[in-house]
């Protein structure tokens, strides 16, 4: 049961949130211009790192806002929380 810092509501239990998968996957502006391969890449291919992962969460039982965070996929330490649309921050060195 992780504790996730909602940028608005503060720290809440994981069960209040919905996980939204990898962050920073922008919908292609002109899908028609894409090859089937490129479209499949957008649809299905995911970074799945063992380490720091940039991912989206939504505070479903709270303010219903989406946000991004950086989380280590082994320690589950959350090393940064940042708004949708903001670039991925540098991961602090301490992330295990």
């Amino acid at each position, binding site marked *: 049961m992780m504790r996730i810092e909602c940028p608005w509501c503060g720290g809440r239990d994981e069960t209040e949130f919905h996980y939204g998968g990898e962050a920073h996957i922008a919908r292609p502006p002109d899908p028609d211009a894409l090859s089937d391969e490129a479209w499949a890449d957008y649809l299905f*291919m*995911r970074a799945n790192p063992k380490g720091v992962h940039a991912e989206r969460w939504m505070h479903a039982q709270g303010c219903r806002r989406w946000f991004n965070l950086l989380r280590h996929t082994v320690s589950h330490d959350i090393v940064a929380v940042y708004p949708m649309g903001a670039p991925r921050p540098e991961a602090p060195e301490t992330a295990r």
Partner: protein
Amino acid sequence: MARYSIFSLARNALTGHRDWPKLWRAPEPRPAYEVVIVGGGGHGLATAYYLAKEHGVTDVAVVERGWLAGGNIARNTTIIRSNYLWDESAAIYEHGLKLWEGLSRELNFNVMLRQRGVLNLAHTEHDVRESIRRVNANRLNGVDAEWVDAEGVKAFCPPISISPKVRYPVLGATLQRRGGVARHDAVAWGYARGADARGVDILQHCEVTGIRRVAGRVTGVETSRGFIGAKKVALVAAGHSSMLAEMAGLRLPVESHPLQAMVSEPLKPVLDCVVMSNAVHVYISQSDKGELVLGAGIDAFNSYGQRGGLHVLEDQLAALMQLFPSFSRARLLRSWGGIVDVCPDASPIVSKTPVEGLYINCGWGTGGFKATPSSGWTFAHTIARDEPHPLNAPFALDRFTSGALIDEHGAAAVAH
């Protein structure tokens, strides 16, 4: 390979069991092999076994980063069935079930297959419709399948509650009598022993850290025990598949999630079959040691942590209380997690890759234990012949581009 039997046991008992040979050797890595299989789980070991046995390819190493068979093969709830909805799935899982049925003798290692029957419960009209759809499809595909109503469920599984008063009453179930459970570790050990006896080198504590390529062709793997050359490299690393694919510059449509399971303290036999429920989300069987073995769905987030949150287990147990109120006083003995690799369509990938000499077998997600024999069997074929067997041809990587997904989410109930 020393044959195992009651006679060899008795003979060894007389000598204080001092003369049993090792189950497998602990060789030093050779500089190169024809095939290097990355991942010493059930699927990797089965692949090695069938490469040697079916295709005569014995210049093979299985490279395992930790202790042999310590990944998902060591931590699954051991449910075996083949009653999948789509033709492609039914074919590959049914092939597996047939292999299971002869496996103990094939390997001369008792994998303790218990075909006690698997019930997939239906709790809503929607479940009923989809269950019957699957039963009909299974029958046409030659997979044994029955639809049983609530009384039939009760007759087959006496401890279950079919009270209509609960929140999601049992309306009926699909039943595959040939489904059941097996001893998870034994399967891996049996394949390892069989592969070793045929000359396969099993290299434990040997982590692959890189995949070497020259001009679009694999030439070998970097490992924690040095470089190992290989004409062919086969990745069978379950939860860690993305990491390995990345070493070869490949992206996969796979995400790794924790999947938890748990056991109760051992109880005298009360539950003789496997019961699975998608709607209230729990599945359960009782092992031959007496523990109730339970699991349910994944923790939502990506993780390699081999653990999840207690709330997932609490929800499963609340669901269990609807089905088996008498199990309330069974006590949780141990819970654990494994890392499963999940594809968007909940079906596996057993495929060649764009890199020559590189093969991948992954995406079995929450349900690949039952496929251990057929996964190894088809993958061995794919590696040896450099082309897929018809059974695994539909499970190729390119389906994500063409859109020919084999979506087992909707209709096939829980994917275990």
